[in-house]
């Protein structure tokens, strides 16, 4: 039985999530902005038809969007994260193996039926994603990851393919590979694309048929692997288990420049609180903390600074981590700098179940257990009644440097008080 690999992803995923829970957004131009209401990162087909470009800074097109009647939404990661989880679970139910590749795309492995035709499977999966989640998806099928990625590109960009394309069983494989520019091949960055074009290799098909010693000299074994994958020999396996996270980073841009230590400290504290929650959720303890900040790199006298401290005992206790981070914040601060971003990185993560204990531990085991219970209680209260129900005094409830999210929709699938309304 031959194996096939499919790359499945959501079309305009963020916009589709918004539309899925808010039917008033269906069929009209909608765009979603990046963090801090920076740039346009997702567009509904209607918005695309109006010629609104991707990646455009919001402030530049704000009035134009208003004039055109485009609905604007800030990034609602609570919603997108939940919808992504549901999407991945659906894919897992309908495949042998799944590798979650990003918030809206995954590689899956499936067995080819005796007649090799995977179209019925793909059609059913598309229908399910649409009915169960309201998400439009594209499915590209091949014999390898690279083929699957190219097939996905063809599924999405050629309208007659209606969101499904199987490169492996296609009779005109060469024809389709010729239509794909070298820049669109997975694993070929801008530098490599230039190198290829100089050698007259302009399409995926030409890369596949390039003499392999030439590619080996330039790219080594990675190039050979890429070429084999293009030929349909799978070299990159599906990675089911994502390796445990090595670091946890929480950082945000400020809604406006910050110039004083007090506000920087508030921001760092807020990030520490978030990061420790993440650590507890992932059942990890941090052995070291790094705190960093920077000014705008596109303005003169760019400043960027970070500081790290080693914890005596690995921890995920918010108050311990907060205490450790405060002197670091002082170290990285410089007066008269217009800071636009700050963040924290939790490092040397250890699994909470197999912790190395230390004789230097400040707390007795009984105290540790009590602190752990306290943290759990706080996490649960915040989960139930919304973030910030229980906070730390070092943070401010509604700081005015906070990230801009002026057009944020509700957490419609994850918070009971924000669920959508049905009229009866």
């Amino acid at each position: 039985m031959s194996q096939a690999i499919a790359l499945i992803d959501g079309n305009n995923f963020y916009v589709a999530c918004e539309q899925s829970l808010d039917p008033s957004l269906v069929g009209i131009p909608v765009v979603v902005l990046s963090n801090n209401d920076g740039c346009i990162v997702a567009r509904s087909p209607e918005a695309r038809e109006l010629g609104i470009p991707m990646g455009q800074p919001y402030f530049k097109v704000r009035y134009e969007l208003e004039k055109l009647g485009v609905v604007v939404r800030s990034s609602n990661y609570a919603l997108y994260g939940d919808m992504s989880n549901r999407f991945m679970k659906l894919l897992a139910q309908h495949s042998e193996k799944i590798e979650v590749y990003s918030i809206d795309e995954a590689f899956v492995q499936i067995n080819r039926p005796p007649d090799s035709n995977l179209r019925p499977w793909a059609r059913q999966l598309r229908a399910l994603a649409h009915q169960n989640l309201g998400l439009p998806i594209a499915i590209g099928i091949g014999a390898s990851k690279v083929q699957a990625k190219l097939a996905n590109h063809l599924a999405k960009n050629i309208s007659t393919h209606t969101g499904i394309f199987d490169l492996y069983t296609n009779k005109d494989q060469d024809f389709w590979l010729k239509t794909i520019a070298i820049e669109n091949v997975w694993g070929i960055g801008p530098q490599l694309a230039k190198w290829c074009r100089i050698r007259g290799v302009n399409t995926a098909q030409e890369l596949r048929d390039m003499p392999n010693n030439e590619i080996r000299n330039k790219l080594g074994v990675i190039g050979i692997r890429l070429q084999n994958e293009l030929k349909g020999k799978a070299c990159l396996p599906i990675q089911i288990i994502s390796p445990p996270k090595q670091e946890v980073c929480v950082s945000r841009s400020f809604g406006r420049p910050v110039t004083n230590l007090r506000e920087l400290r508030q921001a760092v504290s807020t990030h520490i609180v978030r990061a420790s929650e993440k650590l507890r959720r992932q059942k990890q303890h941090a052995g070291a903390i790094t705190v960093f900040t920077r000014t705008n790199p596109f303005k003169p006298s760019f400043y960027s600074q970070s500081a790290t401290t080693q914890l005596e005992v690995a921890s995920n206790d918010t108050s311990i981590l907060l205490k450790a981070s405060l002197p670091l914040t002082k170290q990285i601060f410089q007066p008269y700098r217009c800071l636009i971003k700050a963040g924290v990185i939790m490092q040397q993560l250890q699994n909470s179940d197999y912790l190395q204990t230390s004789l230097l531990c400040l707390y007795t085991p009984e105290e540790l257990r009590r602190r752990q219970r306290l943290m759990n209680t706080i996490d649960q209260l915040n989960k139930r009644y919304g973030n910030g129900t229980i906070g730390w005094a070092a943070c401010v409830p509604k700081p005015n440097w906070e990230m801009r999210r002026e057009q944020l929709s509700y957490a419609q699938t994850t918070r009971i008080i924000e669920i959508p309304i049905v009229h009866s």
Partner: protein
Amino acid sequence: MQVLLYRFMEILRSSKSLKAKGLQVLPPLLSECVSAGFPSPADDYIDLGIDLNEELIRHPTSTFFLRVSGNSMNGAGIHNNDLLVVDRSLEPHPGHIVIAVLDGAFTLKRLVLKGTTLCLQAENPDYPTIDLQKYDNIQIWGVAVYSIHSLNIIKSSK
């Protein structure tokens, strides 16, 4: 004694793994202080408690919650401010109470077959029946499977 301890660990582990799936599990009826005397005869019969998530949500990936606003479905026992459990994976059939998308908003009605035409019918004489053929673009968003009605004994978090 060792067997008992092993069992305790097992119960702890199983409740942990359930929690990891996002389900709430009631604590097992075994206390941490294991007495030195006879083991409780109930130990072998410990259940994990009743989990409403498991009971009310058949398909977690396609189940959503909605809040009811209005009185058109009172006859079906669905009242203003009730919490509705909606499963989008179920195929809507006549007789089901469905969430339809009408003029860009969610509407709750019963799907009924009148002769050969499908209608959305209220369960309250004050509200009209909606003929699906008169609209060219009605989508059935999901099927309501449970309605949770508060009796206002305990003050809700709202």
